[in-house]
């Protein structure tokens, strides 16, 4: 697990047979608003760690900056590396009808919301500067402004129009394209993965089985849209204010682009015409002395929530997979999968396919998990409860949490929400303290060290501590 300078995922897996490197695998390489020099260090180390400047398998889990920006920022280094094969989820296949539907729907909503917020943000700024002698109103305008700015940040994180830092000219979609083009294997069916598929006997990785768990491929996109199933969560996100995000989200596609407003529920005969409206509003609402009583921005108070919900779509398109080792133990990489994705692993047809193709169901894989890459940086809905953590039965599990807490952007809910405390405590309990975080290394909070001393030997604890010897990465060795 590499430190990419910010919150982000970058995992390099190196397999050896009898002391000889046999297979290399890179899962994502990104950091949220990270710097070129920081992430280049990681990329350089990857290059130095592989044989013949070749990575056998590169996995791109989903289309987010914190997972992919390295392929733009450190491109000069990656240029000199060969990618033998590349995997990504079906959602990245621009020809897949379901993917087309998903991104069209999302793109439309994002566009609409952006426009709405941008126009309102401009007038909030204006009101802030005009003479407002109401001290309390200044406060609420300030909050509304931050809220809108966070929403825009969130949307641009997801939208393809911008990427910060030195690679500002490159979009996240460029990173995907770049990786796709680098792949030596171009066959579509080999690149895009669907749940239920099991890949065995890759050259150099004989004996390893790769089980594809998510994202769910269902025609109504139900699983992908389900980002927060409360029964599957250990914690609820600390939300500010209104529970309006779903309602606004549902109707976002009714936004009229010219007037930037939504469709009114009332028949037209009840509406005032433009002239009457202007006159009527001038008698009170728009009068200078009554400006402080206006309600122009309240309906966008949920903008940040809506934009988070919109990006959760993409998190749920994460390619989630498990690797079964020859001894039956499992390494689990759910990327940023959220409730709906986790739950779909146990759907009947997925379960059947996994069993047929690889001899294991998702439940059985979870039972044997000994290495868990914590989902979505430890967020409240990134690790499922009944469909996930509770099914892990191994006595000695190690969890790697790709989190740099003080770099969590305010737009995501800030460091208050990462890691989600109740979930964090559960993971520490489950692993008996064997949790290694990007920023802190082996964790010591919530009695983690007491738990470790009780369950692990001194040598095992030393191994955990040694895992973070190098400031650039945390390392874990599993011997079979």
């Amino acid at each position, binding site marked *: 697990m590499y430190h990419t300078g910010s919150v982000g995922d970058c995992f390099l897996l190196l397999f050896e047979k009898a002391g000889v490197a046999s297979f290399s695998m890179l899962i994502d390489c990104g950091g949220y608003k990270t710097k070129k020099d920081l992430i280049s260090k990681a990329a350089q180390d990857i290059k130095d760690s592989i044989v013949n400047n070749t990575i056998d398998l590169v996995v791109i889990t989903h289309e987010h900056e914190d997972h992919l920006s390295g392929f733009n920022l450190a491109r000069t280094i990656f240029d000199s590396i060969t990618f033998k094969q590349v995997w990504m989820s079906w959602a990245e296949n621009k020809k897949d009808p379901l993917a087309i539907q998903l991104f069209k729907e999302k793109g439309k909503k994002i566009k609409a919301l952006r426009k709405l917020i941008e126009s309102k943000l401009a007038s909030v700024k204006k009101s802030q500067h005009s003479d407002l002698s109401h*001290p309390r109103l200044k406060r609420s305008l300030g909050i509304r402004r931050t809220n809108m700015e966070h929403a825009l940040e969130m949307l641009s994180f997801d939208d393809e129009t911008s990427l910060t830092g030195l690679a500002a000219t490159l979009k996240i979609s460029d990173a995907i394209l770049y990786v796709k083009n680098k792949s030596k294997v171009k066959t579509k069916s080999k690149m895009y993965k669907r749940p239920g598929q099991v890949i065995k006997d890759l050259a150099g990785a004989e004996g390893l089985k790769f089980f594809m768990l998510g994202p769910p491929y269902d025609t109504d996109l139900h699983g992908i849209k389900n980002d927060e199933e409360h029964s599957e969560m250990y*914690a609820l996100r600390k939300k500010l204010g209104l529970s309006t995000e779903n309602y606004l989200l549902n109707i976002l596609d009714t936004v009229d682009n010219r007037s930037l407003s939504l469709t009114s529920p009332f028949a037209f005969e009840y509406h005032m015409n433009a002239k009457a409206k202007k006159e009527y509003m001038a008698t009170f609402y728009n009068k200078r002395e009554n400006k402080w009583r206006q309600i122009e921005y309240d309906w966008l108070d949920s903008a940040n929530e809506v934009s988070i919900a919109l990006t959760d779509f993409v998190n749920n398109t994460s390619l989630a997979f498990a690797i079964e080792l020859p001894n039956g133990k499992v390494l689990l990489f759910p990327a940023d999968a959220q409730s709906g994705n986790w739950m779909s692993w146990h759907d009947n047809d997925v379960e059947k396919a996994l069993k047929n193709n690889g001899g294991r169901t998702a439940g059985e894989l979870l039972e044997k998990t000994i290495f868990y890459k914590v989902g979505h940086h430890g967020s409240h809905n990134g690790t499922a409860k009944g469909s996930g953590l509770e099914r892990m039965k191994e006595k000695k599990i190690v969890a790697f949490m790709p989190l740099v807490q003080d770099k969590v952007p305010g737009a995501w809910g800030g460091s208050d929400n990462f890691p989600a405390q109740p979930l964090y405590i559960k993971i520490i309990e489950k692993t008996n303290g064997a949790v290694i975080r990007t920023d802190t290394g082996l964790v010591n909070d919530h009695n983690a060290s007491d738990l470790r001393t009780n369950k692990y030997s001194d040598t095992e604890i030393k191994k955990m501590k040694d895992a973070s010897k190098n400031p650039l990465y945390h390392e874990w060795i599993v011997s079979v």
Partner: protein
Amino acid sequence: MFFINATIMTEKQPPFRKLRGYAFDPSMSLEIDTAPINEILYKVPWEKSLEKGPEGEYIKVLDWDPSSGAVYDPVDLNDQFILANDGLEPSESNPKFHQQMVYAVTMNTIRNFEKAIGRKVQWSPAITEKKVGGLRKRIWSHVPKLVLYPHAFRGANAYYSPDRKAILFGYFNATPASVDLHMPGSIVYSCLSHDIIAHEVTHAILDGMFSRFMEPTHPDVAAFHEAFADIVALFQHFTFPDVITHEIARIRGQFNAENLLGKLAVEFGKASGSHKSLRDGIGEEDKKTNEWKRKKPDITSYRTEFECHDRGSILVAAVFDAFITIYNKRASDVIKTATGGTGILPDGDLNTYLITDLANEASKAAAHVLNMCIRALDYCPPMDITFGDYLRALITADAELVKDDKYNYRLAFIDAFRKRGIYPDGISNLSVESLVYSGDDSPLMDEIMWTGDLRNFIENFKNEMSYEEDRERIFNNTRSFITGDKTRSELKNYKPKIGFHKFLVDLVRGNYKNELQFEKRMGLVFSDHYSDLDILPSPTYRSIPSIEVHDIRLNNRVGPDGNIQNQVIIMLAQSCGVKVKYDEKKSEYDIKTFPRNKSKNYTDGSFVFRGGCTLVFDLNTNCLQHVIPKPIVDMELLNQRKPVYKPNRSRAIMQYRCQCGDYADITGIRAMMRQAEYLSHIHQPKSNNNEQY
């Protein structure tokens, strides 16, 4: 309250305007059982100059829908067709009816308040800042009308905005937990729910009386705001005769069965993903069987529930419990008469006479309880209210107005609070005598009350305010009694008014020179020791401590025995800056004071710390009848033989814990303080962490 205008008219003005509306919300009109009672006639006081909107003396309904960019035509309730039909017909698709509904319920709620408190309802003043000679000055001005926006935003919410003196109602597409509960995708309007309107208006009225209750200094404060708004909405159900008869018949006079009277916002709850109403005052669903059952009082809940709505529901349940006790007592006589003394009701439906009698008892008891709850507000401290304070206020108000408690109302309340583990601080037992706030009958106070100045001041106030009906003049006159008034000095025989502020300081410091005695009674600092607490000097009078006179009110009521109450209520407040540090290792709090800067927002364990007290002067007996203190100073240290002046430790720690410490998250106060709107805070479900463990 309606007062006949003295001008001569050819035809008498009608006392009421009748307006059709929902007793609950539109969903009840779709159920066979409740459809016949859901449409009722609201009788609201006739407003002579009611304009399109509707816009009257108290409120302005403004139907601007910013998310749709539309203004909906305002309804003209004076239109002859509309008048002849008792208003527009209830309809979800006609926004004009929505406006009418909002107007009717709001005015009905205001009328209930005015009946109980015996004076006009005022909205909280608008505070603006102006720079005068380099100094920032705050100006308080009267807000004549609350603005109501029936279609303000899209969302399952509605809130009162204290910054804008407005209520914003949302509307949303239903996302029910199951399709038989509510049609998915259909639109739900919060402005069509009686309960939601009454709840939000009550927030606004409460804010008009106690603007400091918006400051979350104790887990109880925000909870009280929510609970009180729920109580008013709930007990208003009992003012609808058809509804109450229907429900009493259904539950056969026994409140142990599920009923609509104790529920709030049914449609809203079902449409936004829950299986039930938003809140239920008396019952709850059994988690296993999903069946309704009467809630049992839980002695620990007051110590374990912190989220403001959950905590508020404890208070609502206590009040409702007291109501049921009172009703049962009243009803048992009726039932005994009807059953030849056995008290055992026959099977099947009850006969209509009995139902009418029982319904009468229920609505009488409910009206009394609602009145008690509203009247108690006059006996609350000006800030930092706790449920215990409110119990004391309830008992004080009632003991004073109703000398003979023949139905044991007061005991019913004390019992209901006791069962929930709510005890006021600083009293030795839960008897009526110890709960009633004491006054000051010391020889010194006696002397003050009889020597003229204070008595003159209070009498002047009473004389000037007694017959004043104009709300703006009431506001401005009260302000002039607070701050003094030199503006009309050109008038003949006009004596400039001395403001109460100056008056009080002169009284305490000048004439009687016994600051300590006042300090011990009121918990505020009058002496030069104010600098010990970093209380700022008064900007007007320099070198004396700054004291804020929050409000002066006249209390003029007639009790059931015909006794007339004649009181003037004065609320005082003082503030200083406090910084609290918590030492985790020693689990100790360290408290320091600093001179506060009014225009600064504090973080990091520093905050504005307030104390205050409510003084109730009785004009009949000419004494300071009750003192209701919220001390800014530490009373224990003050009462030592050699008094020491320190900020009130337990209150300062509690405020720190609520705003910055261990209570900030579980109460929801941290989130609340970061929101643009304090009261837009919806009920936050607890994390379901422990459900499966």
